[in-house]
């Protein structure tokens, strides 16, 4: 799989851009805030319908403009295909043009054919993105890790997107109901029946979301373990636990765990292998018990506190919590191992060579690790790399790369280094 060309119109700080990519290494150099990440974001958006940076679709439209267009061409086993996304602000007839509110019309096309939802573009371009933010995967909040694992799941199995969106819808519906009942103060029999329905819906989709996360982990972990022990050249055993959260904040849980090493909470932080082999019915029982336990707290907080939207992944190295005990260097190795495992898993599952998007991250790794990452799947991958300077790279490694300089939303130079 290769992306061949990206065309942008009024996307972020790009007014008009056409960029052709080389089959191998593409390096995008530029000072800060010139548009390097925006360029990778555009590719990610076309490949996944989503960006990890944008809070709302309006953010994509270049300031002062009211529409944007992205067109990504790619080579899928010999045939040229395209994905395009167009966003246009639908103004109320008598509102000022400059307001960044109102409705945004979104048109997604695959090979020129309009898609009814974002589902239509998923799974067409297998990719792994690795940004300097990801280096903080272990230290970041639980939401970051949840989005990471759910993102992998959708890339492995595009229809999982529907499960996630049904789950999110269910949580939103249930939260509204909790708010309603909390404000009303008292629940009658019919209210209880109604909440029971949403408990059942929540449980049903929660199981699907959790099971998929566990399946992804079950495949990913052995790959990551192997890479990790190779990277550390030591007997470091990498483990990941799936923590069913009970709604308290992460730091609260964490503190409590340090205080007492037992109790219900601890019992739920089962190793994913236990959970993975657990029948759905057992999992449903655990969720039902948590729902019952936390009903009062849910009504007080007017929020659903049980389910995969509160869960977390806990990484351990030789049994000890990696956030608490692993050194910075070890934490980086772990993230690198996980990312490499992600590449392997994606290429094994899809049978295609994924594209690797590296934002500001490669120069942070030493040359040996750079080389290791780029050879993760044992065959040449297309990589698109952003960096502020070339000095961090192994000169030999730069051979045969296409190097482009981006300045203020424009590609100002392009050179092809001679092949090795």
């Amino acid at each position, binding site marked *: 799989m290769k992306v061949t060309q990206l065309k942008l119109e009024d996307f972020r700080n790009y007014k008009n851009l056409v960029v052709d990519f080389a089959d191998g290494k593409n390096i995008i150099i530029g000072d800060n805030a010139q548009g390097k990440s925006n360029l990778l974001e555009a590719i990610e958006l076309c490949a996944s319908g989503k960006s990890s940076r944008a809070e709302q679709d309006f953010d994509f439209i270049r300031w002062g403009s009211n529409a944007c267009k992205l067109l990504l061409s790619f080579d899928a086993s010999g045939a040229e295909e395209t994905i395009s996304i167009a966003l246009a602000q639908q103004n109320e007839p008598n509102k000022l043009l400059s307001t960044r509110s109102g409705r945004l019309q979104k048109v997604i096309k695959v090979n020129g054919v309009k898609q009814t939802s974002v*589902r239509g573009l998923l799974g067409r371009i297998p990719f792994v993105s690795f940004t300097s933010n990801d280096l903080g995967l272990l230290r970041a909040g639980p939401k970051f890790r949840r989005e990471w694992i759910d993102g992998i799941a959708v890339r492995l199995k595009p229809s999982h997107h529907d499960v996630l969106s049904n789950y999110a819808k269910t949580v939103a519906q*249930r939260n509204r*109901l909790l708010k309603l009942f909390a404000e009303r103060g008292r629940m009658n029999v019919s209210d209880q029946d*109604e909440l029971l329905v949403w408990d059942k819906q929540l449980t049903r989709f929660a199981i699907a979301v959790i099971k998929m996360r566990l399946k992804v982990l079950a495949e990913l972990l052995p790959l990551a373990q192997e890479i990790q022990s190779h990277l550390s050249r030591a007997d470091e055993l990498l483990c990941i636990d799936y923590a069913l959260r009970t709604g308290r904040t992460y730091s609260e849980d964490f503190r409590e765990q340090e205080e007492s090493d037992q109790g219900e909470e601890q019992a739920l932080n089962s190793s994913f292998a236990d959970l993975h082999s657990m029948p759905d019915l057992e999992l449903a029982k655990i969720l039902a018990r948590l729902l019952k336990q936390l009903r009062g707290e849910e009504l007080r907080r007017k929020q659903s506190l049980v389910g995969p939207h509160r869960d977390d992944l806990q990484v351990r190295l030789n049994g000890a919590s990696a956030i608490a005990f692993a050194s910075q260097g070890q934490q980086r190795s772990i993230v690198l191992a996980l990312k490499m495992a992600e590449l392997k898993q994606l290429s094994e599952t899809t049978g295609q060579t994924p594209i690797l998007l590296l934002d500001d991250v490669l120069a942070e790794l030493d040359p040996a690790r750079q080389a290791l990452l780029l050879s993760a799947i044992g065959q040449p991958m297309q990589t698109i790399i952003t960096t502020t300077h070339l000095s961090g790279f192994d000169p030999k490694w730069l051979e045969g790369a296409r190097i482009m300089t981006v300045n203020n939303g424009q590609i100002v130079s392009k050179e092809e280094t001679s092949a090795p």
Partner: protein
Amino acid sequence: MFFTRPLARLIEEFQKFPGVGPKSAQRMAFHVLDLSAEDAQALTEAITEAKEKVKHCNTCFHLSAQDPCEICVDSRRDQQVVCVVADPKDVIAFERTREYRGQYHVLTGLISPLDGKGPDKLSIRQLLARLQNETIKEVIMAINPTVEGDATVLYLSQLIKPAGIKLSRIAFGLPMGSDLEYADDMTLSKSLEGRREI
């Protein structure tokens, strides 16, 4: 201002229609201006009459100019089975097939807290009354398999199942003429759930 006030107003009204954007609204408004006086009169009368006369049937909640509606009073129809749908449009879709000859009950929506739709906003109480008072032995739920549709079916089955009435839900699956290979997982798993013996 591009449009003189009465024209702008007409465009605004058309733009409130589902699926009508500014351009189509403008086209529709210009079309109205081109109408003969009689045709324009006929249009306003049609709107007024429909609005005045078309009401909910107080039994099944389908739209009709008479109460009970044409379907409810038709004694040739099966009185023992009722098909529960969300919307009057679904009744029309079923009637078009000419296959189903039982009763209907229109819920007038689905349970959706986010839209302020609780069970009390739907015609659920009236459905339960019908199940108690009429000769109904079987309920078929013809409700879309969405998050809100499933929630509504769950809610209804919690209430109806204990009464010992036969309860089923229509199967969802592959559209006719479609190819298994290209069906998405959701559709495939739904159609597997709804499989039947042959």
